[in-house]
């Protein structure tokens, strides 16, 4: 009884700590927040069911693996759904939500910035970064989020992405290069 309570407490802490990071990963993969939340729910249920069979150190890796598989499953279902929608002409399910508007460019002619202006520039950089990041290929996004942002090892990242360590390095390097090119004017 005590074990079960402790286990639940640990799981609750783990989920509270990492759920938003997992959500970010899902949102970038699916490009839709509602769908990402649905997938995250399935992931969490699946994770809680099997978590007791693994060490706590492996939980994050396991959780990302489950999430990745759920995303792939969801995208497969989505593809079938889209095909069906294409067959049925009067379907209302063809709305494309994957388009992103490029954020407004700020005026570069100004020299010194006040605090408000600086904040504005920081916001613009954040928007610019999000836009640039969304434009990256999916694998590069995954490699960046797991390896750089989450600080996972190359091996762990490779395991989650179901590819070799070399591929992870390649994806990451390309992602960094693309981001540097896209945001160079802001950060150099």
């Amino acid at each position, binding site marked *: 009884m005590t074990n*079960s309570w402790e286990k*639940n407490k640990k*799981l*609750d802490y783990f*989920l*509270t700590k990492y*759920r*938003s*990071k997992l*959500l*970010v990963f899902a*949102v970038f993969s699916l490009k839709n*927040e509602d769908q990402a*939340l649905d997938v*995250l*729910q399935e992931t*969490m*249920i*699946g*994770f*809680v*069911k*099997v*978590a*007791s*069979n693994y060490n706590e150190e492996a939980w994050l890796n396991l959780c990302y693996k489950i999430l990745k598989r759920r995303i792939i499953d969801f995208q497969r279902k989505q593809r079938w759904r889209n095909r069906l929608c294409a067959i049925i002409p009067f379907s209302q399910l063809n709305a494309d939500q994957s388009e992103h508007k490029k954020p407004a460019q700020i005026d570069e002619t100004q020299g*010194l*910035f006040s*605090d408000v202006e*600086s904040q504005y*520039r*920081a916001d613009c*950089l*954040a928007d610019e*970064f*999000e836009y640039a*990041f969304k434009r990256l290929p999916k694998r590069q996004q995954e490699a*960046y*989020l797991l390896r*750089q*942002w989450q600080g996972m090892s190359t091996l762990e990242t490779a395991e989650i992405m179901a590819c070799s360590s070399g591929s992870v390095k390649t994806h990451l390097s390309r992602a*960094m290069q693309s*981001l*540097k090119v896209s*945001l160079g004017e*802001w*950060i*150099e």
Partner: protein
Amino acid sequence: MNYKNKSKPLKQHFDKNLDQIEARLSQKHQQRLNEISQKALQLGSTRPLFSLHSTLIQTLIKPLPILILSSLLMLSVLINTLFEYQNIQEKSPNIPDNVLVANKIPTWVKDTQVPLELLENMDFYVWLSQHDHIAKCQDQSLLAAARVNQFRSRQ
């Protein structure tokens, strides 16, 4: 303050932006995230995935598609065989009675090298009935011919 600061490493900028995105999403969907976590904990603790019951169901469910496919395949093969059999029966020619009788005639009778007077000799058939086993060797014309020669030499 100029935001373009060379001392800040690239990763730090990006991480900060991702953290901002995370915070924004977390704040926006906080209620839903709480609900999800609670639901996961409730469902996860009540239905363990690797219990005996679920593994039994999984082992039963997995061969089901294979079973369905194989039974469908067998059914299609059976139907195909039945149709083929029906077609063969329909296509088989009506052999006239005289042809069927002709098929029963021993080969050595058809053999042109066997003299006609021998075939018309009643003693030959008497001799043949006495040596019945030769009649069974209808298709072995060489053996039959040898027997014919044997009869001729006796005469």
